[in-house]
């Protein structure tokens, strides 16, 4: 089966992860702009991060035959540093129109502070101006209120729920998010978010419409194979292949391809992923995996 992981922070992951994801059938992924585990203090750090998302990481991913897309946004945590947030807001329009940017996100609330609210609203307006989908990060703390408030604000600004993905949903928030017409995404992130057995139960309860599964794998203890592993468990527990495909591929595709930046043709007949680039020497596949036998021999490396 082919999968899309529509939420994964590859800048924190290794080439082993890319290899494993490709082997497991992940054909495309979306890397939302987020925070890095530690607050940034200079706008230049954001600029370089955004450049990485549209440049280096996109390239790194392509070397493993996985199509890389991203979202652009100022996350809620760092929105609390107002002078910095102002500078980032000036930077965003420059990046939001780059190739492969499929949404404004992940935006929303963390502490639900006034500053968070201010930049959340400004970014909603930017998405509306550029006609881009929106990816909402719902908070860990006070999740239910934070989720409902996010939707209230989106609706206040006149957003079309079919162009908004509400992420990190759980058993407590799913019903309301679905009823209000949004794409409803679940993060399979053992420990702090959702385990995949719970996800199977949710699927049995709600069916596959407008439901999206992602890994949100990042710098924490997380699993970049969450999507294929959850699909496997779903199949094993009797959910049909057609329904599994919807929640691990099609729904994410339908939601984000509304940006005009994501097209199945990119991975189905991918002429740009040429072997020459895949196995170039001094980049990611450093000594050239293809010739690994030769190199092992020559270096007398014993495995």
């Amino acid at each position, binding site marked *: 089966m082919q999968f899309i992981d529509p939420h994964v922070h590859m800048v924190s992951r290794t080439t082993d992860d890319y290899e494993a994801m490709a082997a497991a059938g992940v054909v495309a992924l979306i890397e939302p702009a987020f925070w890095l585990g530690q607050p940034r203090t200079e706008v230049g750090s954001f*600029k370089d991060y*955004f*450049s990485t998302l*549209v*440049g*280096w990481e*996109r*390239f790194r991913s392509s070397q493993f035959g996985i199509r890389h897309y991203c979202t652009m946004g100022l996350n809620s945590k760092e929105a609390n540093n107002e002078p910095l947030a102002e500078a980032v807001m000036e*930077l965003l329009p*420059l*990046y939001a*129109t*780059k*190739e*492969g940017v499929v949404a404004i996100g992940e935006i929303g609330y963390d502490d639900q502070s006034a500053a968070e609210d201010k930049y959340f609203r400004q970014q909603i307006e930017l998405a509306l101006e550029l006609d881009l989908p929106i990816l909402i990060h719902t908070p860990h703390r006070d999740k239910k209120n934070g989720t409902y408030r996010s939707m209230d604000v989106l609706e206040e600004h006149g957003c079309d729920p079919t162009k908004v993905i509400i992420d990190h949903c759980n058993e407590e928030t799913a019903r309301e998010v679905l009823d209000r017409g949004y794409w409803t995404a679940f993060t399979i992130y053992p420990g702090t978010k959702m385990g995949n057995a719970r996800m199977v139960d949710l699927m049995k309860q709600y069916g596959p419409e407008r439901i999206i599964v992602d890994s949100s794998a990042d710098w924490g203890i997380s699993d970049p194979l969450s999507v294929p592993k959850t699909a496997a468990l779903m199949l094993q527990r009797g959910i049909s292949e057609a329904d599994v495909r919807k929640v691990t591929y099609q729904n994410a595709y339908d939601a984000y391809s509304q940006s005009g930046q994501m097209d199945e043709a990119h991975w189905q007949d991918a002429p740009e992923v040429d*072997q*020459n*680039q895949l*196995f*170039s*020497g*001094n*980049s*990611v596949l450093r000594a*050239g995996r293809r010739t690994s036998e*030769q*190199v092992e*021999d*020559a*270096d*007398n490396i014993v495995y």
Partner: protein
Amino acid sequence: MNPTLHHLLQKHLPPKANTWLEGKLTALQTDFQPRSFYLAFGACPRFLGKDPLTFTEAELSSLTVAYPNFSATEWTTDQLGRILLATALPTETNVEVLDTLFGTADYRELIALYKGLYFLDNAPDFVPRTREGLRTNMTGVFDAIALENPYPARYLDEDAWNHMVLKAMFMQRPMYRIYRIEDRKNAKLADIFLDYAEERRSAYRPVSPELWRFIDGFVTDRARTALEKTRETGTPLERRAVEKVLAPDAEAVSWNVIGREVETALAG
């Protein structure tokens, strides 16, 4: 603005795309604003498309002065549109304006920018930018500068040129596709490549048969030893390459043919 490029695009773009591009060019020339340049540059794929263009022989020959070797690579509508916009910038400020753009550019934009530098009226002012670009590890971006592009051969000094060529070898790029690779060979580069060959030999790692191209014409005693060793122990293609250096008068295939064979073997 580069008139040849302008003319070429006018002939090849569909009417709607032409109108859009002309509007942007006029706006740049009547009231230059960096912001409108950045937005137009970013929007080129959306309004001009990304299709490769096919040119007539006459068109290609009209470009040989403005951009030698133009016909060696594929050019797409968005790429040439972006380059034309860059050539419309006032040269007094284009280094600064483009530096900002380089600093925020995506992969495709970087490729267009580096491929297009040669078209700028003050192209020599972009040597530091080109050297910065060569530090990339993104193969496509490196190739946009190093392969078939007339810029490095014309504007990089010997040290910068040598660094580029050496890095191309490290990245396993097809060396024969570096424009004017033969003309800009030099003794220092031959020496560096000999060191490299020895380092690889000590590590029991192979070297590209294309490496010997850079020794050809600079056969010192040290080089002769390395060549003879390779003649004994090398692969068939390596042996053909070193034979060519050791017996320059004998009939042999060209370096470009050897280069193509190396490239085919790597892609295999």
